[in-house]
Protein backbone atom coordinates (compact mmCIF):
# COMPACT_ATOMS: atom_id res chain seq x y z
CA UNK A 1 0.00 0.00 0.00
CA UNK A 2 1.45 3.38 -1.05
CA UNK A 3 2.12 6.19 1.42
CA UNK A 4 -1.18 8.11 1.60
CA UNK A 5 0.32 11.58 1.32
CA UNK A 6 2.37 13.76 -1.01
CA UNK A 7 5.16 16.27 -0.49
CA UNK A 8 4.27 19.95 -0.28
CA UNK A 9 7.52 20.63 -2.12
CA UNK A 10 6.32 18.54 -5.06
CA UNK A 11 2.75 19.84 -5.02
CA UNK A 12 3.06 22.91 -7.26
CA UNK A 13 2.18 20.62 -10.18
CA UNK A 14 -1.38 20.73 -8.82
CA UNK A 15 -1.58 24.43 -9.58
CA UNK A 16 0.15 24.13 -12.95
CA UNK A 17 -2.40 21.52 -13.93
CA UNK A 18 -5.22 23.82 -12.83
CA UNK A 19 -3.83 26.56 -15.02
CA UNK A 20 -3.70 24.17 -17.97
CA UNK A 21 -7.23 22.91 -17.47
CA UNK A 22 -8.65 26.41 -17.22
CA UNK A 23 -6.76 27.59 -20.28
CA UNK A 24 -7.98 24.56 -22.21
CA UNK A 25 -11.57 25.23 -21.26
CA UNK A 26 -11.55 28.97 -21.81
CA UNK A 27 -13.90 28.85 -24.79
CA UNK A 28 -16.35 26.34 -23.40
CA UNK A 29 -16.60 28.16 -20.06
CA UNK A 30 -17.40 31.39 -21.86
CA UNK A 31 -19.95 29.63 -24.00
CA UNK A 32 -21.71 28.23 -20.97
CA UNK A 33 -21.66 31.67 -19.34
CA UNK A 34 -23.01 33.12 -22.56
CA UNK A 35 -26.23 31.16 -22.35
CA UNK A 36 -27.51 32.97 -19.27
CA UNK A 37 -24.64 35.27 -18.26
CA UNK A 38 -22.40 37.66 -20.11
CA UNK A 39 -20.19 35.06 -21.73
CA UNK A 40 -16.90 36.01 -20.15
CA UNK A 41 -16.32 33.41 -17.47
CA UNK A 42 -13.67 31.59 -19.52
CA UNK A 43 -11.96 34.86 -20.34
CA UNK A 44 -11.99 36.02 -16.71
CA UNK A 45 -10.71 32.72 -15.37
CA UNK A 46 -8.11 32.25 -18.03
CA UNK A 47 -6.80 35.78 -17.56
CA UNK A 48 -6.28 35.16 -13.85
CA UNK A 49 -4.85 31.69 -14.08
CA UNK A 50 -2.49 32.68 -16.88
CA UNK A 51 -1.24 35.64 -14.87
CA UNK A 52 -0.44 33.20 -12.09
CA UNK A 53 1.62 31.07 -14.45
CA UNK A 54 3.78 34.12 -15.26
CA UNK A 55 4.20 34.78 -11.57
CA UNK A 56 5.34 31.24 -10.80
CA UNK A 57 7.69 31.05 -13.78
CA UNK A 58 11.23 30.25 -12.66
CA UNK A 59 10.23 30.09 -9.02
CA UNK A 60 10.77 26.74 -7.31
CA UNK A 61 7.37 26.91 -5.61
CA UNK A 62 5.89 24.32 -3.29
CA UNK A 63 2.16 23.66 -3.14
CA UNK A 64 1.64 26.30 -0.48
CA UNK A 65 3.39 29.04 -2.44
CA UNK A 66 1.74 28.01 -5.69
CA UNK A 67 -1.74 28.07 -4.13
CA UNK A 68 -1.00 31.34 -2.38
CA UNK A 69 0.27 32.90 -5.60
CA UNK A 70 -2.77 31.73 -7.52
CA UNK A 71 -5.07 32.99 -4.79
CA UNK A 72 -3.39 36.38 -4.55
CA UNK A 73 -3.34 36.93 -8.29
CA UNK A 74 -7.03 36.12 -8.55
CA UNK A 75 -7.89 38.14 -5.50
CA UNK A 76 -5.85 41.16 -6.39
CA UNK A 77 -5.92 41.36 -10.11
CA UNK A 78 -9.10 39.85 -11.46
CA UNK A 79 -11.77 41.84 -9.72
CA UNK A 80 -15.43 41.11 -10.26
CA UNK A 81 -16.87 38.40 -8.02
CA UNK A 82 -14.73 35.57 -9.28
CA UNK A 83 -11.48 37.23 -8.20
CA UNK A 84 -12.26 37.37 -4.52
CA UNK A 85 -14.22 34.10 -4.50
CA UNK A 86 -11.66 31.81 -6.10
CA UNK A 87 -8.90 33.97 -4.64
CA UNK A 88 -10.12 33.38 -1.11
CA UNK A 89 -10.55 29.71 -1.84
CA UNK A 90 -6.92 29.17 -2.82
CA UNK A 91 -5.46 31.53 -0.22
CA UNK A 92 -7.34 29.84 2.59
CA UNK A 93 -6.20 26.45 1.28
CA UNK A 94 -2.62 27.68 1.24
CA UNK A 95 -2.87 28.88 4.83
CA UNK A 96 -3.68 25.33 5.93
CA UNK A 97 -1.00 23.63 3.87
CA UNK A 98 1.37 26.28 5.21
CA UNK A 99 4.64 24.79 6.41
CA UNK A 100 3.48 21.17 6.39
CA UNK A 101 6.10 18.99 4.73
CA UNK A 102 3.59 16.36 3.72
CA UNK A 103 -0.02 16.77 2.71
CA UNK A 104 -2.15 13.90 3.85
CA UNK A 105 -5.81 13.21 3.63
CA UNK A 106 -6.65 15.03 6.88
CA UNK A 107 -4.68 18.09 5.84
CA UNK A 108 -6.33 18.19 2.44
CA UNK A 109 -9.75 17.87 4.08
CA UNK A 110 -8.89 20.86 6.25
CA UNK A 111 -7.67 22.72 3.20
CA UNK A 112 -10.97 22.15 1.41
CA UNK A 113 -13.00 23.17 4.44
CA UNK A 114 -10.94 26.30 4.91
CA UNK A 115 -11.24 27.20 1.22
CA UNK A 116 -14.99 26.78 1.33
CA UNK A 117 -15.27 28.78 4.54
CA UNK A 118 -13.24 31.54 2.88
CA UNK A 119 -15.79 31.79 0.09
CA UNK A 120 -18.70 31.66 2.45
CA UNK A 121 -17.23 34.51 4.44
CA UNK A 122 -17.58 36.84 1.46
CA UNK A 123 -20.38 35.40 -0.65
CA UNK A 124 -23.99 35.23 0.34
CA UNK A 125 -24.67 32.39 -2.13
CA UNK A 126 -26.25 29.22 -0.80
CA UNK A 127 -26.48 25.71 -2.22
CA UNK A 128 -29.26 25.72 -4.77
CA UNK A 129 -28.61 29.29 -5.95
CA UNK A 130 -26.95 27.98 -9.14
CA UNK A 131 -23.38 29.01 -8.42
CA UNK A 132 -20.05 27.28 -8.01
CA UNK A 133 -21.10 26.40 -4.47
CA UNK A 134 -23.42 23.81 -5.95
CA UNK A 135 -20.36 21.88 -7.07
CA UNK A 136 -18.07 22.84 -4.22
CA UNK A 137 -20.23 22.21 -1.16
CA UNK A 138 -21.26 18.62 -1.99
CA UNK A 139 -17.70 17.88 -3.14
CA UNK A 140 -16.19 18.99 0.15
CA UNK A 141 -18.90 17.16 2.07
CA UNK A 142 -18.21 13.98 0.09
CA UNK A 143 -14.49 14.20 0.73
CA UNK A 144 -14.99 14.67 4.48
CA UNK A 145 -17.61 11.91 4.63
CA UNK A 146 -15.33 9.44 2.86
CA UNK A 147 -12.57 10.36 5.25
CA UNK A 148 -14.89 9.83 8.22
CA UNK A 149 -15.93 6.49 6.75
CA UNK A 150 -12.27 5.41 6.76
CA UNK A 151 -11.79 5.55 3.00
CA UNK A 152 -8.27 6.32 1.84
CA UNK A 153 -7.05 9.54 0.18
CA UNK A 154 -7.61 8.51 -3.39
CA UNK A 155 -10.97 6.96 -2.61
CA UNK A 156 -11.99 10.17 -0.90
CA UNK A 157 -10.76 12.17 -3.90
CA UNK A 158 -12.76 9.93 -6.17
CA UNK A 159 -15.89 10.48 -4.06
CA UNK A 160 -15.20 14.21 -4.22
CA UNK A 161 -14.99 14.09 -8.02
CA UNK A 162 -18.25 12.21 -8.28
CA UNK A 163 -20.05 14.59 -5.96
CA UNK A 164 -18.65 17.63 -7.69
CA UNK A 165 -19.74 16.41 -11.12
CA UNK A 166 -23.16 15.54 -9.82
CA UNK A 167 -23.44 18.94 -8.14
CA UNK A 168 -22.44 20.70 -11.29
CA UNK A 169 -24.94 18.73 -13.37
CA UNK A 170 -27.67 19.55 -10.88
CA UNK A 171 -27.28 23.25 -11.65
CA UNK A 172 -28.97 22.63 -15.00
CA UNK A 173 -32.33 22.37 -13.27
CA UNK A 174 -31.80 25.28 -10.93
CA UNK A 175 -33.03 28.83 -11.15
CA UNK A 176 -30.23 31.33 -10.69
CA UNK A 177 -30.60 33.45 -7.60
CA UNK A 178 -27.20 35.14 -7.47
CA UNK A 179 -25.15 37.13 -9.94
CA UNK A 180 -25.86 38.24 -13.44
CA UNK A 181 -28.05 35.35 -14.53
CA UNK A 182 -30.43 35.77 -11.59
CA UNK A 183 -32.04 38.48 -13.76
CA UNK A 184 -33.50 35.73 -15.95
CA UNK A 185 -35.55 34.04 -13.24
CA UNK A 186 -37.34 31.00 -14.61
CA UNK A 187 -35.52 31.40 -17.92
CA UNK A 188 -32.18 30.66 -16.26
CA UNK A 189 -33.27 27.04 -15.91
CA UNK A 190 -32.02 24.50 -18.44
CA UNK A 191 -28.34 25.35 -18.71
CA UNK A 192 -25.29 24.59 -16.61
CA UNK A 193 -23.91 27.27 -14.30
CA UNK A 194 -20.57 28.49 -15.57
CA UNK A 195 -19.00 28.86 -12.13
CA UNK A 196 -20.10 25.38 -11.11
CA UNK A 197 -18.54 24.08 -14.30
CA UNK A 198 -15.19 25.74 -13.67
CA UNK A 199 -15.31 24.63 -10.06
CA UNK A 200 -15.88 21.04 -11.12
CA UNK A 201 -12.98 21.27 -13.54
CA UNK A 202 -10.79 22.57 -10.73
CA UNK A 203 -11.82 19.95 -8.18
CA UNK A 204 -11.58 17.14 -10.66
CA UNK A 205 -8.14 18.25 -11.81
CA UNK A 206 -6.93 18.53 -8.22
CA UNK A 207 -8.18 15.01 -7.53
CA UNK A 208 -6.40 13.62 -10.58
CA UNK A 209 -3.13 15.40 -9.82
CA UNK A 210 -3.07 14.30 -6.19
CA UNK A 211 -3.99 10.73 -7.06
CA UNK A 212 -1.07 10.65 -9.44
CA UNK A 213 1.23 12.10 -6.77
CA UNK A 214 0.29 9.54 -4.12
Amino acid sequence: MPVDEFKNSEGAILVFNLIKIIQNHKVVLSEIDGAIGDGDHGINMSKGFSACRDRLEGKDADLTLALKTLGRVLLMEIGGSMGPIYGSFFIEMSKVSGHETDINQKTFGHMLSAGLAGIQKISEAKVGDKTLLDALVPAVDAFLAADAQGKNFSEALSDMKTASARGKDATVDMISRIGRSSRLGERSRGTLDAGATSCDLILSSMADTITALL
Partner: protein
Amino acid sequence: MQRIINNPERVVEDMLKGFVKTHSDLVSETDNPRVFKYKNAPVKGKVGIVTGGGSGHKPAFIGYVGRNMVDAVAVGEVFSSPTAIAFYDAFREVDSGNGVACLYGNYSGDNMNVKMAIELADEDGIKVRTVVANDDVASAPKSEMGKRRGVAGEIFMWKVAGAKAAQGASLDEVITVAQKAIDCSRSVGIGLSSCTIPAVGKPNFLIAAGKMEVGIGHHGEPGIEVRDLGTADEMAKLMLDIILPDYPFTRGDDVVVLVSGLGATPVMELYILFDEVSDILAEEGIKIHRSYVGNYFTSLDMAGVTLTLMKLDDELRELMDCEADSVGLRQFGSDACG
Protein backbone atom coordinates in the same frame (compact mmCIF):
# COMPACT_ATOMS: atom_id res chain seq x y z
CA MET B 1 -23.89 46.77 -32.40
CA GLN B 2 -23.70 50.30 -33.81
CA ARG B 3 -20.84 51.26 -31.50
CA ILE B 4 -17.80 53.48 -31.64
CA ILE B 5 -15.17 51.13 -30.30
CA ASN B 6 -11.98 49.38 -31.24
CA ASN B 7 -11.31 46.02 -29.60
CA PRO B 8 -14.47 45.22 -27.61
CA GLU B 9 -12.35 43.58 -24.92
CA ARG B 10 -10.44 46.81 -24.41
CA VAL B 11 -13.19 49.41 -24.23
CA VAL B 12 -12.34 50.28 -20.65
CA GLU B 13 -8.64 50.88 -21.34
CA ASP B 14 -9.43 52.86 -24.47
CA MET B 15 -12.04 54.96 -22.73
CA LEU B 16 -9.73 55.68 -19.80
CA LYS B 17 -6.98 56.86 -22.12
CA GLY B 18 -9.35 59.28 -23.77
CA PHE B 19 -10.74 60.41 -20.45
CA VAL B 20 -7.45 61.38 -18.86
CA LYS B 21 -6.36 63.17 -22.01
CA THR B 22 -9.57 65.19 -22.04
CA HIS B 23 -9.56 65.99 -18.34
CA SER B 24 -5.88 66.24 -17.45
CA ASP B 25 -6.65 69.56 -15.76
CA LEU B 26 -8.66 67.66 -13.17
CA VAL B 27 -7.79 63.95 -13.12
CA SER B 28 -4.39 62.21 -13.05
CA GLU B 29 -3.24 58.71 -13.80
CA THR B 30 -1.48 56.76 -11.06
CA ASP B 31 0.92 53.82 -11.09
CA ASN B 32 -2.04 51.48 -11.15
CA PRO B 33 -3.66 51.77 -14.60
CA ARG B 34 -7.04 51.16 -13.01
CA VAL B 35 -6.75 53.92 -10.41
CA PHE B 36 -7.29 57.63 -11.14
CA LYS B 37 -7.05 60.52 -8.76
CA TYR B 38 -7.89 64.16 -8.43
CA LYS B 39 -4.75 65.91 -9.63
CA ASN B 40 -4.18 67.59 -6.23
CA ALA B 41 -4.74 64.42 -4.19
CA PRO B 42 -3.69 63.64 -1.53
CA VAL B 43 -4.90 67.01 -0.30
CA LYS B 44 -2.96 67.87 2.82
CA GLY B 45 -5.00 67.68 5.98
CA LYS B 46 -8.07 66.40 4.14
CA VAL B 47 -9.84 63.07 4.48
CA GLY B 48 -9.54 61.18 1.21
CA ILE B 49 -12.73 60.19 -0.62
CA VAL B 50 -12.55 57.00 -2.65
CA THR B 51 -15.12 55.19 -4.72
CA GLY B 52 -15.08 52.63 -7.48
CA GLY B 53 -17.11 50.14 -9.41
CA GLY B 54 -17.55 48.48 -12.75
CA SER B 55 -17.34 50.51 -15.95
CA GLY B 56 -20.20 51.42 -18.24
CA HIS B 57 -21.86 53.99 -15.98
CA LYS B 58 -20.30 57.17 -17.36
CA PRO B 59 -19.84 59.75 -15.94
CA ALA B 60 -19.76 57.46 -12.88
CA PHE B 61 -17.42 56.68 -11.37
CA ILE B 62 -14.36 58.48 -12.72
CA GLY B 63 -16.42 61.51 -13.69
CA TYR B 64 -16.99 62.39 -10.05
CA VAL B 65 -13.30 62.79 -9.29
CA GLY B 66 -12.43 66.42 -8.70
CA ARG B 67 -12.37 69.40 -6.40
CA ASN B 68 -14.66 69.03 -3.38
CA MET B 69 -15.71 65.68 -4.79
CA VAL B 70 -14.10 62.23 -4.98
CA ASP B 71 -10.29 62.03 -4.64
CA ALA B 72 -9.71 58.69 -6.34
CA VAL B 73 -11.56 55.89 -8.08
CA ALA B 74 -10.90 52.22 -8.68
CA VAL B 75 -12.08 51.23 -12.16
CA GLY B 76 -13.38 47.78 -13.03
CA GLU B 77 -14.20 46.04 -16.28
CA VAL B 78 -17.61 46.77 -17.76
CA PHE B 79 -20.21 45.91 -15.12
CA SER B 80 -17.61 44.12 -13.01
CA SER B 81 -16.01 45.15 -9.73
CA PRO B 82 -12.51 46.62 -9.68
CA THR B 83 -9.82 44.48 -8.12
CA ALA B 84 -8.98 44.63 -4.45
CA ILE B 85 -5.59 46.01 -5.41
CA ALA B 86 -7.23 48.86 -7.28
CA PHE B 87 -9.26 49.87 -4.25
CA TYR B 88 -6.17 49.50 -2.07
CA ASP B 89 -4.05 51.61 -4.39
CA ALA B 90 -6.78 54.23 -4.49
CA PHE B 91 -6.68 54.39 -0.70
CA ARG B 92 -2.93 54.87 -0.78
CA GLU B 93 -3.11 57.59 -3.41
CA VAL B 94 -5.43 59.81 -1.40
CA ASP B 95 -4.51 59.23 2.21
CA SER B 96 -2.78 62.27 3.67
CA GLY B 97 -2.72 60.72 7.12
CA ASN B 98 -6.28 61.76 7.87
CA GLY B 99 -7.89 58.54 6.74
CA VAL B 100 -10.00 57.51 3.79
CA ALA B 101 -13.75 57.33 3.31
CA CYS B 102 -14.59 54.60 0.81
CA LEU B 103 -18.11 55.31 -0.43
CA TYR B 104 -19.45 52.74 -2.81
CA GLY B 105 -22.41 50.73 -3.97
CA ASN B 106 -23.28 47.40 -2.32
CA TYR B 107 -22.64 45.06 -5.23
CA SER B 108 -21.33 41.69 -4.09
CA GLY B 109 -18.10 41.99 -6.07
CA ASP B 110 -17.44 45.48 -4.74
CA ASN B 111 -18.20 44.40 -1.21
CA MET B 112 -15.71 41.56 -1.45
CA ASN B 113 -12.98 43.54 -3.13
CA VAL B 114 -13.29 46.54 -0.83
CA LYS B 115 -13.14 44.22 2.16
CA MET B 116 -9.88 42.71 0.90
CA ALA B 117 -8.48 46.13 0.11
CA ILE B 118 -9.19 47.36 3.60
CA GLU B 119 -7.34 44.40 5.07
CA LEU B 120 -4.32 45.38 2.99
CA ALA B 121 -4.63 49.04 3.96
CA ASP B 122 -4.85 48.06 7.61
CA GLU B 123 -1.44 46.47 7.33
CA ASP B 124 -0.11 49.80 6.05
CA GLY B 125 -1.76 51.67 8.88
CA ILE B 126 -4.13 53.51 6.55
CA LYS B 127 -7.42 54.09 8.26
CA VAL B 128 -10.34 53.32 5.96
CA ARG B 129 -14.01 53.55 6.79
CA THR B 130 -16.83 52.73 4.41
CA VAL B 131 -20.35 53.79 3.61
CA VAL B 132 -22.24 51.36 1.43
CA ALA B 133 -24.96 53.06 -0.58
CA ASN B 134 -28.34 51.36 -0.64
CA ASP B 135 -30.68 53.91 -2.17
CA ASP B 136 -32.32 51.64 -4.77
CA VAL B 137 -35.75 51.05 -3.28
CA ALA B 138 -36.71 48.43 -5.82
CA SER B 139 -33.76 46.16 -5.11
CA ALA B 140 -35.03 44.78 -1.80
CA PRO B 141 -37.91 45.38 0.59
CA LYS B 142 -37.53 47.95 3.33
CA SER B 143 -37.21 45.16 5.89
CA GLU B 144 -34.00 44.16 4.13
CA MET B 145 -32.50 47.62 3.55
CA GLY B 146 -29.01 46.17 3.89
CA LYS B 147 -29.51 44.21 0.69
CA ARG B 148 -30.49 47.22 -1.38
CA ARG B 149 -28.06 48.31 -4.07
CA GLY B 150 -26.52 51.71 -4.45
CA VAL B 151 -27.46 53.67 -7.56
CA ALA B 152 -27.60 57.36 -8.42
CA GLY B 153 -27.97 58.33 -4.77
CA GLU B 154 -24.25 57.68 -4.59
CA ILE B 155 -23.73 60.98 -6.38
CA PHE B 156 -25.33 62.87 -3.50
CA MET B 157 -23.27 60.82 -1.06
CA TRP B 158 -20.05 61.77 -2.87
CA LYS B 159 -21.06 65.41 -3.25
CA VAL B 160 -21.89 65.79 0.41
CA ALA B 161 -18.89 63.86 1.69
CA GLY B 162 -16.56 65.62 -0.73
CA ALA B 163 -17.74 69.02 0.47
CA LYS B 164 -17.55 67.98 4.11
CA ALA B 165 -14.01 66.68 3.70
CA ALA B 166 -13.05 69.89 1.90
CA GLN B 167 -14.25 71.83 4.92
CA GLY B 168 -11.65 69.98 6.98
CA ALA B 169 -13.92 67.51 8.73
CA SER B 170 -12.53 64.38 10.39
CA LEU B 171 -12.96 60.90 8.94
CA ASP B 172 -15.71 60.13 11.40
CA GLU B 173 -17.54 63.31 10.50
CA VAL B 174 -17.23 62.60 6.80
CA ILE B 175 -18.51 59.06 7.28
CA THR B 176 -21.39 60.26 9.40
CA VAL B 177 -22.56 62.78 6.84
CA ALA B 178 -22.09 60.36 3.92
CA GLN B 179 -24.18 57.81 5.78
CA LYS B 180 -26.78 60.46 6.48
CA ALA B 181 -26.88 61.45 2.81
CA ILE B 182 -27.53 57.90 1.69
CA ASP B 183 -29.97 57.24 4.53
CA CYS B 184 -31.95 60.25 3.34
CA SER B 185 -31.86 59.16 -0.32
CA ARG B 186 -34.22 56.95 -2.28
CA SER B 187 -33.97 55.96 -5.94
CA VAL B 188 -35.86 53.93 -8.49
CA GLY B 189 -35.27 53.20 -12.16
CA ILE B 190 -37.38 52.42 -15.20
CA GLY B 191 -35.80 50.57 -18.10
CA LEU B 192 -37.07 51.00 -21.67
CA SER B 193 -34.46 48.88 -23.43
CA SER B 194 -31.69 46.45 -22.73
CA CYS B 195 -27.99 47.23 -22.98
CA THR B 196 -25.11 45.48 -24.65
CA ILE B 197 -21.72 44.84 -23.06
CA PRO B 198 -19.36 45.43 -25.99
CA ALA B 199 -17.30 42.30 -25.31
CA VAL B 200 -20.47 40.22 -25.29
CA GLY B 201 -21.95 41.78 -28.40
CA LYS B 202 -25.57 40.92 -27.77
CA PRO B 203 -28.17 42.52 -25.50
CA ASN B 204 -27.95 41.45 -21.86
CA PHE B 205 -31.67 40.87 -21.68
CA LEU B 206 -34.78 42.05 -23.43
CA ILE B 207 -37.47 44.62 -22.86
CA ALA B 208 -40.17 44.25 -25.48
CA ALA B 209 -41.26 47.27 -27.50
CA GLY B 210 -44.22 48.90 -25.82
CA LYS B 211 -43.15 47.63 -22.40
CA MET B 212 -41.13 49.12 -19.57
CA GLU B 213 -39.48 47.54 -16.56
CA VAL B 214 -40.12 49.36 -13.31
CA GLY B 215 -37.41 49.03 -10.69
CA ILE B 216 -34.68 47.88 -13.06
CA GLY B 217 -31.13 47.92 -11.70
CA HIS B 218 -28.07 49.64 -13.10
CA HIS B 219 -26.86 46.48 -14.79
CA GLY B 220 -30.30 45.34 -15.80
CA GLU B 221 -31.01 43.60 -12.52
CA PRO B 222 -34.66 42.54 -12.66
CA GLY B 223 -37.20 45.11 -11.62
CA ILE B 224 -40.41 44.83 -9.68
CA GLU B 225 -42.70 44.71 -12.64
CA VAL B 226 -42.82 44.74 -16.44
CA ARG B 227 -45.77 46.75 -17.66
CA ASP B 228 -47.08 48.60 -20.67
CA LEU B 229 -45.02 51.63 -21.56
CA GLY B 230 -46.64 54.62 -19.92
CA THR B 231 -46.52 58.33 -20.54
CA ALA B 232 -43.85 60.44 -18.89
CA ASP B 233 -46.45 61.62 -16.40
CA GLU B 234 -47.40 58.06 -15.52
CA MET B 235 -43.77 57.12 -15.09
CA ALA B 236 -43.18 60.07 -12.79
CA LYS B 237 -46.14 59.08 -10.66
CA LEU B 238 -45.14 55.41 -10.58
CA MET B 239 -41.64 56.28 -9.46
CA LEU B 240 -42.74 58.72 -6.81
CA ASP B 241 -45.31 56.22 -5.54
CA ILE B 242 -42.42 53.86 -4.91
CA ILE B 243 -39.98 56.39 -3.49
CA LEU B 244 -42.10 58.75 -1.41
CA PRO B 245 -43.69 56.30 1.05
CA ASP B 246 -40.47 54.35 1.47
CA TYR B 247 -38.43 57.03 3.19
CA PRO B 248 -41.08 58.52 3.74
CA PHE B 249 -40.86 62.01 2.28
CA THR B 250 -43.67 64.17 3.63
CA ARG B 251 -45.21 67.61 3.44
CA GLY B 252 -42.77 70.33 4.39
CA ASP B 253 -39.68 68.35 3.44
CA ASP B 254 -36.91 70.00 1.49
CA VAL B 255 -35.33 67.74 -1.13
CA VAL B 256 -32.81 67.60 -3.92
CA VAL B 257 -33.94 65.71 -7.00
CA LEU B 258 -31.86 63.87 -9.54
CA VAL B 259 -33.29 62.57 -12.80
CA SER B 260 -30.66 60.60 -14.67
CA GLY B 261 -30.88 59.01 -18.08
CA LEU B 262 -29.59 55.47 -18.48
CA GLY B 263 -27.50 56.23 -21.54
CA ALA B 264 -29.58 56.12 -24.69
CA THR B 265 -32.53 58.26 -23.67
CA PRO B 266 -32.40 61.82 -25.04
CA VAL B 267 -32.06 64.44 -22.32
CA MET B 268 -35.15 66.19 -23.67
CA GLU B 269 -37.22 63.33 -22.31
CA LEU B 270 -35.65 63.60 -18.87
CA TYR B 271 -36.87 67.17 -18.61
CA ILE B 272 -40.35 66.05 -19.62
CA LEU B 273 -40.33 63.53 -16.80
CA PHE B 274 -38.87 66.01 -14.34
CA ASP B 275 -41.64 68.47 -15.09
CA GLU B 276 -44.23 66.05 -13.75
CA VAL B 277 -42.05 64.98 -10.82
CA SER B 278 -41.83 68.60 -9.86
CA ASP B 279 -45.59 69.10 -10.17
CA ILE B 280 -46.37 66.07 -8.03
CA LEU B 281 -43.89 67.14 -5.37
CA ALA B 282 -45.44 70.60 -5.33
CA GLU B 283 -48.87 69.03 -4.76
CA GLU B 284 -47.45 66.92 -1.96
CA GLY B 285 -45.99 70.01 -0.34
CA ILE B 286 -42.43 68.80 -0.81
CA LYS B 287 -40.07 71.60 -1.74
CA ILE B 288 -37.33 71.09 -4.33
CA HIS B 289 -34.24 72.92 -3.18
CA ARG B 290 -32.15 71.98 -6.19
CA SER B 291 -32.46 69.56 -9.07
CA TYR B 292 -30.21 67.77 -11.48
CA VAL B 293 -31.43 66.46 -14.82
CA GLY B 294 -29.10 64.73 -17.25
CA ASN B 295 -26.97 61.66 -17.78
CA TYR B 296 -25.44 61.37 -14.33
CA PHE B 297 -25.29 57.62 -13.87
CA THR B 298 -25.83 55.47 -16.94
CA SER B 299 -25.93 51.82 -17.93
CA LEU B 300 -24.14 51.60 -21.26
CA ASP B 301 -26.71 52.07 -24.01
CA MET B 302 -29.79 51.28 -21.96
CA ALA B 303 -32.80 53.52 -22.54
CA GLY B 304 -34.59 54.62 -19.42
CA VAL B 305 -34.36 56.80 -16.39
CA THR B 306 -33.70 56.84 -12.67
CA LEU B 307 -35.20 59.19 -10.13
CA THR B 308 -33.50 59.99 -6.82
CA LEU B 309 -34.69 62.16 -3.96
CA MET B 310 -32.63 63.15 -0.95
CA LYS B 311 -34.21 64.85 2.03
CA LEU B 312 -32.19 67.79 3.23
CA ASP B 313 -31.40 69.09 6.66
CA ASP B 314 -29.34 72.25 7.17
CA GLU B 315 -26.05 70.41 6.96
CA LEU B 316 -26.91 68.50 3.79
CA ARG B 317 -28.32 71.66 2.19
CA GLU B 318 -25.16 73.61 2.85
CA LEU B 319 -22.98 70.80 1.52
CA MET B 320 -25.10 70.31 -1.62
CA ASP B 321 -24.77 74.03 -2.34
CA CYS B 322 -20.97 74.03 -2.11
CA GLU B 323 -18.99 74.60 -5.23
CA ALA B 324 -17.84 71.41 -6.99
CA ASP B 325 -15.66 70.75 -9.97
CA SER B 326 -15.80 67.33 -11.56
CA VAL B 327 -16.71 66.14 -15.03
CA GLY B 328 -20.04 64.71 -13.94
CA LEU B 329 -21.02 67.40 -11.47
CA ARG B 330 -19.77 70.91 -11.79
CA GLN B 331 -21.43 73.78 -10.01
CA PHE B 332 -20.60 77.25 -8.87
CA GLY B 333 -21.27 77.95 -5.24
CA SER B 334 -21.58 81.03 -3.12
CA ASP B 335 -19.22 79.20 -0.81
CA ALA B 336 -15.95 77.95 -2.27
CA CYS B 337 -16.20 75.28 0.42
CA GLY B 338 -12.55 74.22 0.61
